[in-house]
């Protein structure tokens, strides 16, 4: 588990994706090969975090834990939305500080740094991005 968290830190912590140096295509999460032109000349690209809601769903039942002891840190029900970043790529993420009745397709959002999950009281805390209404 620690290795798994550690490896994904750049993308989870700061929305670090990638940019193709040949055709400028942007990817999140990062892609080692450009899916458009096949180039492997790729550099890291950190996205601003501003975007808008393309669609969303309200999860009212049971948390879908990644593993047996990893518990999501969020209210119930919680909202998952697909956000189109200002730069183009789409990101699926949880909403924070937001009730289902406040959600709207097209709503402007911005990324914030929050607790995502915890491995119980003794284990690691996983941090990462969620979105709040802007």
């Amino acid at each position, binding site marked *: 588990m620690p290795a798994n968290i550690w490896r994904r830190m750049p993308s989870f912590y*700061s929305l670090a994706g990638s940019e193709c140096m040949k055709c400028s295509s942007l990817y999140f999460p990062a892609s080692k090969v450009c899916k458009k032109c096949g180039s492997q000349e790729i550099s890291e690209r950190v996205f601003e975090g501003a975007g808008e809601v393309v669609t969303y769903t309200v999860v009212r039942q049971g948390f879908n834990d990644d593993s047996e002891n990893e518990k999501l840190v969020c209210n119930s029900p919680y909202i998952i939305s697909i956000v189109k970043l200002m730069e183009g790529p789409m990101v699926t993420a949880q909403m924070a500080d937001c009730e289902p009745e406040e959600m709207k397709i097209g709503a402007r959002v911005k990324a914030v740094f929050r*607790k995502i999950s915890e491995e119980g009281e003794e284990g690691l805390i996983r*941090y990462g991005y969620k979105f709040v209404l802007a």
Partner: protein
Amino acid sequence: MKDVGIAGYGAYIPKFRIKVDEIARSWGRDADSLKKSLCVNEKAVPGIDEDSATMAVEASKHALSMGKVQGSSIQALFIGSESHPYAVKPTATIVAEALRLSRGLFSADLEFACQAGTSSMQIVYSMIKSGMIGYGLAIGTDVAQANPNDALECTASAGSASMLLGSENILARIEATYSFTTDTPDFWRRQNQPYPKHGGQFTGKPAYYRHIVECTQKIMEMTSSRPDDFAHVVFHQPNGKFPVEAARMLGFTERQTQNGLLVREIGNCYSASSLIGLCSVLDEAESSQRILLVSYGSGAGADGFVFEATGLLPEARKSFMKVKDMMKNTVYLPYEKYARQSKKYA
């Protein structure tokens, strides 16, 4: 020697609030007498997924962006808190990674009750002054803990403030800093205990007032200042009464303290309390106005700072939201939801 000062600043206050009326109602206590004795009406409550690290990241994004400084230029990060998420695993590592700071980084977590944020600022200031580093971040951040039905529950809140210090493009120059420290047992929490204990009445005279007054008098002497030399004065704000009374004792007027006094609306955010007050003062200060900041940490100590706002301040803050505007978009919680959100009864 070169000037060192604040090159950018940022505050973060969570969106949620609970009213003292609501806390009093749920425990069957008299709200009016609580509000009167504490001079606090409501307090900020963190979201379920917020902690001292996440709030520090948000405050620091603001500070870096105002200073137009890339994370990769930051060479020191010190974080003061009494609610670091881990007992062992530095908050500074998490915040540095989230902000993509330089890997060549001097950093540590500090704890000195509510004073550790300003202590962080003294360390970063010294490193820049001595030429060790160019830019550094000093943060005060806390999710304050209080035993349910303790009077402390009406004030213990959450927030974060981040100060970007440097020696170029300074918005407020640091003229002097001083600290006053004694062993005064007014407030403590033993290892592995969830909530702190406090000495009731003892937290006033020998603790808060003595340290604030001694520290203020000394730093005014060091800088040959009189009370009316300061346009703005900020003291640590454990409640709405202490800082107002301390200001009165030292000869300051309400006009000097009003911009930085936020405790009535947000509560006591511990290590972030006086620094968020400072951010709010920096939102208003005019060029060449002088600012006095004195924090207080139980146990006990006080850190004093004297700043002078520069001509760059009004322009630099222009496109950023003021602290007092950040405080407007709030959601009030009923006690049950507040208790669940702050994991009082998990």
